[in-house]
């Protein structure tokens, strides 16, 4: 045996062994020693095959800018009062602007000085004195706005991670995408609606004082005193399931927010056997809670989550332990989920669902079965056809084809690529096209044989002539596959991956492996005539 054949044979053998070793964890999962399972990952199935949920959430970053401005407004009012600057109003104006109205230019200059010192990130804008007042406008610089938005998305990402962790999903994907979008993939999830409720909740917990002397009817008609808001307390009757909503006027300003929480747990109220959520404040929160309850004994405090009042208990006495409870008409599930979102932290801005693709496990299972069946049936048909057409050489081409499928699967596992349903279609297509390289070579060999060349020369020149064609044809297909990969989302990407891997693997098997088999028979077994 010549050295070249020995070397090439060893290389192919090594590739086959490596491929089989890496495929073993996929084929027989638990019967392998752990070091083996650790060395090679099983093929990762896409959500369309194993079932699961693919979500794209859009973070409403403009709201984050607004709420940042709102908190500056609150701080500004306190600052101006502290500095004894007399002002008419401080409010948000036109979305992204802060407007301070004062009575004269002197006060205006004082305001400017304070703002410059306290909030250097705000840019002063034109002064407009037409209404008899002096209006000072401030806005965030574009850079600052971009930063706030970016921070909001990063924080949302972190919160989503916490929530998904608490929800308990194996191998979740949580990624930031362009345009303030967040991609979340939850494989094998059983309760998709619950996951959406959990992830979609902004979970901004606020404690707000109830304005007792407000006129509810007027408020409903839209006539609200400045600094107050109309909210609804939602109540669900546990027997009939009927939802009642009670209007409530509360102060705009929150006395305390959920940022100061240290823990939230579900407890059961033993008297009524109803679940509630017990919350603990951190040190700062506990101090603040102590102050508020001390100052407002006898008044009602609304516990507001995402603009819905959960309860509005009357403060009976000063509470200094740093803990409180949120009760409402919860089911145990709702209470658990509420505790989860409170522990995981609030979102800096609301999110909305831009894309949701959920595949149930049964459909995924069917898809795998049908996908594998179509690959097998297609492959068997091709194998029979090639065998009939090329006989001896057909066996060579079919060996290459089977190896090709094995290599594709192995490479998928090694690259940690995801196999999707279109990905299976990509394998099917590759099976059809991979044989093309062998067909090209064999047709060339036949031509050479017809011209009276010997088997040895016919094979050499057949391979040489077909090689350029095969490379050109495959590279152009590869260009299409690479573009698809760049553009692709989810399943489509899976198609691009298997198509690309398939093309590369097929060049190796159809050219290198099949040539080796021919050379072996010609040089080692001294075969003089080839069956083609």
């Amino acid at each position, binding site marked *: 045996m010549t050295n070249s054949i020995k070397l090439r044979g060893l290389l192919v053998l090594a590739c086959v062994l490596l491929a089989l070793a890496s495929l073993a964890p996929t084929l027989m999962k638990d019967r392998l020693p752990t070091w083996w399972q650790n060395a090679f990952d099983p093929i990762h199935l896409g959500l369309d095959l194993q079932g699961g949920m693919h979500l794209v959430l859009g973070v409403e970053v403009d709201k984050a800018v607004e709420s940042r401005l709102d908190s500056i407004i609150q701080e500004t009012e306190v600052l101006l009062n502290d500095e004894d600057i007399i002002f008419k109003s401080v409010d948000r104006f036109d979305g992204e602007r802060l407007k301070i109205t004062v009575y004269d230019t002197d006060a205006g200059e004082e305001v400017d000085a304070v703002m410059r010192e306290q909030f250097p990130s705000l840019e002063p804008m034109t002064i407009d004195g037409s209404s008899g007042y002096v209006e000072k406008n401030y806005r965030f610089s574009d850079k600052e706005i971009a930063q706030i938005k970016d921070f909001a998305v990063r924080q949302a990402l972190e919160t989503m991670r916490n929530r998904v962790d608490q929800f308990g999903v194996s191998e979740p994907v949580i990624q930031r995408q362009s345009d303030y979008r967040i991609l979340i993939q939850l494989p094998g999830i059983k309760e998709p609606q619950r996951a959406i409720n959990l992830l979609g909740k902004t979970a901004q917990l606020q404690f707000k004082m109830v304005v007792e002397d407000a006129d509810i009817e007027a408020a409903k008609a839209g006539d609200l005193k400045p600094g107050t808001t109309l909210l609804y307390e939602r109540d669900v009757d546990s027997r009939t399931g009927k939802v009642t909503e009670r209007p409530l006027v509360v102060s705009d300003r929150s006395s305390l927010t959920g940022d100061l929480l240290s823990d939230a747990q579900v407890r059961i109220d033993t008297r009524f056997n109803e679940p509630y959520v017990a919350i603990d404040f951190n040190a700062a929160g506990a101090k603040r809670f102590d102050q508020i309850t001390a100052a407002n004994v006898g008044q009602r405090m609304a516990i507001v989550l995402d603009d819905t009042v959960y309860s509005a208990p009357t403060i009976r006495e000063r509470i200094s332990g740093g803990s409180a409870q949120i009760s409402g008409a919860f089911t145990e599930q709702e209470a658990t989920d509420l505790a989860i979102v409170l522990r995981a932290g609030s979102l800096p801005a609301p999110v909305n669902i831009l894309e949701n693709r*959920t595949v149930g496990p049964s459909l995924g299972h069917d898809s795998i079965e049908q996908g594998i069946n179509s690959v097998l049936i297609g492959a068997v048909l091709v194998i029979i056809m090639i065998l009939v057409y090329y006989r001896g050489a057909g066996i060579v081409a079919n060996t290459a084809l089977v190896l090709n499928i094995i290599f594709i699967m192995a490479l998928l596992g090694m690259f940690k690529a995801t196999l999707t349903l*279109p990905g299976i279609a990509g394998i099917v297509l590759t099976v059809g096209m991979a044989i093309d390289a062998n067909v090209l070579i064999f047709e060339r060999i036949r031509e050479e044989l017809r011209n009276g060349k010997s088997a040895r020369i016919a094979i050499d020149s057949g391979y040489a002539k077909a090689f350029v064609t095969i490379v050109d044809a495959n590279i152009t297909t590869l260009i299409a596959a690479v573009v698809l990969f760049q553009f692709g989302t989810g399943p489509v990407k899976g198609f691009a991956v298997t198509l690309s891997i398939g093309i590369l693997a097929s060049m190796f098997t159809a050219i290198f492996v099949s040539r080796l088999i021919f050379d072996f028979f010609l040089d080692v077994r001294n075969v003089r005539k080839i069956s083609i």
Partner: protein
Amino acid sequence: MELIKPDINIDFISKRRYAAVISVVLILVGLAALVLRGGPNYGVDFAGGTVVQVRFNQSTDAVQIKDLLVPEVLASAVVQRFGDEDNEFLIRAEESDNGLQGMRTALVQKLEQEYGDGSVEVRRVEMVGPQVGKDLRKKGLMAIVYAMVGILIYISWRFELRFAVGAIVALLHDVTLTFGAFSLFDKEIGLPIIAAFLAIIGYSLNDTIIVYDRIRENRGRYNDKSFADLINRSINDTLSRTILTSTTTLLVVLSLFIFGGGVIHDFAFALLIGVIVGTYSSIYVASPMLLLWDKFQNKKVQEKS
């Protein structure tokens, strides 16, 4: 075995005008279908909206499901049977923005009221917001454009510009025809279909390049032949391979079409059309384009002199 005799010499090129007529007629039929249906039938991926695939534990029909859901749960909906049995359906709605309010829950509740608790299984939900749909549509179109540009560059480098132009015209022909077939059969265009289009581009090109490669090779061999004869000789030289490869590819795509399951049915349909059209176009579009280019060039040269 040999299906095609080695000395075969079918005169393909002389029939190129008939082929052109057939191509144009087919493209026009596709475009007419497209216009009559009021534009492409975009799936939720591109149009935005929601598709819910539900399976019942009993037989029912689309009209009944629709009557139950519209207008109580959904403002409007299209209900279609999915697969071969009448217990599985696709419900397509235009709404996409109420994902948070639990359209899925409302839908299941309503259906279970009618068919009994636990009788309805939601097997798939796809909700795409209008903005994402628009983005995906743009990206899909760009993907096809980028792929074509990349291929144009590669072929111009490996062959000549006229070959590249011929190949691109053939690709446009194939994609247009497949697109037309989708309009004709009123099938939805979704993300996987774009993947199928790109696969068709890849396949058709594969086929075209093999013929072109032979033309390039034969040009050195037969100096005495006219360009038309040269092209014809090259098509005949590669005919055996063309038929064999097309058949094997068709076999696997057919197996995907028949056994691959409902989710991938339209995808396989696109490939099926694409493989047939792609094979045809490398003989009757890509190659005659070279001749056309040649004539055009000669005319320009004559006009100059």
